[in-house]
């Protein structure tokens, strides 16, 4: 399973890469929104954990771009946010995201969520 961890927090990326990697996933990283788009289109990961607050753009903008690209259609995207926000969830799902992951979150919690049907 290929997972892209897209977040500007270096520590968070490191924890996810270490944790999900230990479970057998192949992880790649992105620190900005632009890198995230590039990486999805190029590597076509199975999963993308997408932060909502990049210094250059927000997660919804990333989703909006990906929605126009057929290369990204196979990637399941989960939006990482600090707050539980129903409106944001609706918007994200409308743009093709599978769901929201509330930060802070441990790799095992992410993995459990990914195993859900």
């Amino acid at each position, binding site marked *: 399973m290929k997972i892209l961890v897209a977040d500007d927090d270096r520590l968070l990326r490191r924890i996810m890469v*270490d944790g999900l990697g230990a479970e057998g996933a192949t992880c790649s990283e992105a620190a900005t929104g632009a890198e995230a788009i590039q990486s999805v289109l190029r590597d076509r990961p199975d999963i993308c954990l997408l932060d909502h607050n990049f210094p250059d753009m927000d997660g919804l903008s990333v989703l909006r771009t990906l929605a126009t690209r057929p290369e990204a259609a196979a990637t399941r995207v989960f939006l990482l946010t600090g707050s539980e926000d129903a409106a944001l969830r609706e918007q994200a799902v409308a743009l093709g995201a599978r769901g929201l992951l509330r930060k802070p979150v441990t790799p095992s919690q992410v993995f459990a969520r990914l195993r859900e049907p």
Partner: protein
Amino acid sequence: MVQFRSTEREILFKVVYYGPALGGKTTNLEALHEITDPESKTQLTSLKTSEDRTLFFDFLPFELGEIEGYRIRIQLYTVPGQVQYNTTRKVVLAGADGIVFVADSSPDRLRENFTAWENMKANLLANRMALETLGVVIQANKRDLPESAPVDQILHTMRAEGTPVTEASALTGEGVIATFQLLIQTVLRGFAQRFKLVQKNASPSALDEGVARVFAPYADRRRGGAPPSEESVFSAQIPLAQPLSETEQLEAALQSTTRLAEQYQETERLSRLYRDRLREMTTLNEVGAAMAGAGSTAGALELVGPRVREIRPRWTVSLFLSEEGAPRLLVRDPAGEDPLLQAGLASGVLQGSRGKLDRLQERLGERGVVPDPPLGEAAVIPLGPPGTPRAHLVVYAPEGHALGIEDTRFLGLLERLVSPRLMAMDLLAEIQAANERLELRVVERTAELTDALERLKELDQLKRAFLNSVSHEMRTPLTNVRSYADLLLRYPDQIAARGPEYLQVISEESQRLEALIADLLSYTRVKEPARGEPCDLAEVLSEMVETLKPRADAKYIQVQVQKEHPKVVVPVNREDAQMLVRQILDNAIKYSPDGVRVKVFLLEDPRKVIFAVRDFGAGFPKEQRERLMEPLPEGGKGVAYFKKPGLGLGMFLVREVLAKYGGGLHIEAMEPGSNVVVEIPKPGAPPPEPAG
């Protein structure tokens, strides 16, 4: 002689019961009284000797009622029968309109009947009265005696055949009414002829029938009920050792008559007095009732003046309302000018009047006031609470008249009625005003409480937002610690390869959590009011640079301090100063890239101390800087302030501390990095000059 008062349509007759001694004349009157007036509305007057003999005369007034439109009143008299009292008999007989001759039916007293009859005729002659012009009825009394003489024999002995006669037994009452009725009919018939009433539709038979109707209810009544009450008989028993002589008897009669006249006058006077008092009380009662319905003090008092004059029509009445400054004339009855006002004395006299009733005569005289037109005695009656009257009633008697005991009593009653009413009205008004004030206060207080509740709700929301924010901040390092701990537990085989690396993160994140908890504790302290000694900011700065050195070294950051003076005292207690410096320095280190410098400046001018930290990193994230530059919400708190994401507790604490000491903070964006400038005013410094 009949008294005929044509205008009042009233006829007054005098009827005399004549006859021998002990013949039953008084008994006849007693029976009449008892039968016709069982409720004793009239009084039988009777003066007797101890032998139960009539001494002077008996007297009974009798109201016959109306006959043919005339009100007929009859005065009944008896005469004493004893021979020696002839003068009395003569006097009583004078002016009689009718005579009932009560003859004794005892066979052994027939001669006395004759003697008395002759005596009567002689007395009529002496009074220049003619038997023919009078109504006369002979009553053969004591018919209940076992051996009574036949009526014919009685008349024959008296030589009075042809005179109308009745039979009676006065002791039982039998025949008494019939005798009286017959006499009245005889008298009225003669009267009608004499005054030619027949031509005015008063036929003799009509009169007879009228009289018969009056007596019909009594026709079957006999004596034998309860004896007449003591009040109904004015009777006196006069003990006589021996019969009085004619002169003595006359003297006693005169005295007695005088006393009776006096008593009559006294009775009349008393009844007049009671009538007047009844009228007063009725009026006062009406005044009280009317005042109870009045809306204002003036309205209530306006009713009083005219009502006083109903009781004392000859008085003049003024009513002054006590107002600030001068008394105001409310009522003047009859209309005119008040003498006190005319003389300009109203204020002085009325306000000086403290008693319940002050007589004004002397006081007016002292001041040389001569009312025009002249008046009699005058008095002032203060009305209302004692000492602070609401009004003054002034009454003036007509010229030459004084205020008597009855007047004083009446005015006293009036005062006792009116004053409490006025006081009650005042109290009622006060209670109403107090109620209104209370209602207003309740409304105000409710609004205050509603406001306080709103503030409490907001504060509560604020607290929850703060707790949310803090718990989120704390959960992040904790989650990181747990992530690596989980990893090491699940994959122990990795401990050898990655263990130290993971443990390093766990250690760092634990420290971050510890720092957050320290901040939280600081927060509770920072909310406490400022106290403690001022401190040396230069010393605190050196201390903090030393404390944070490991963190700076880890990022190869060099902290440079520039200060003008070795000692810079600020009016901030040491703990607060430490926190201020630590937070700002820590922030600068945290947001600077590895290997750069962080510069710290400590400057001072007469007004303030300036502490600035320049970093060369990405600087403050833009969003944080904007949030920090926002003016603090009211009172340094606000829900929205916490709800927005991105602001750490650290910089919030900085603002709180500065707000506490009246200091300021601004952040300048530099290229690269930012400059955080803190200003702390010195104590006693003049207020800062207005910006610009």
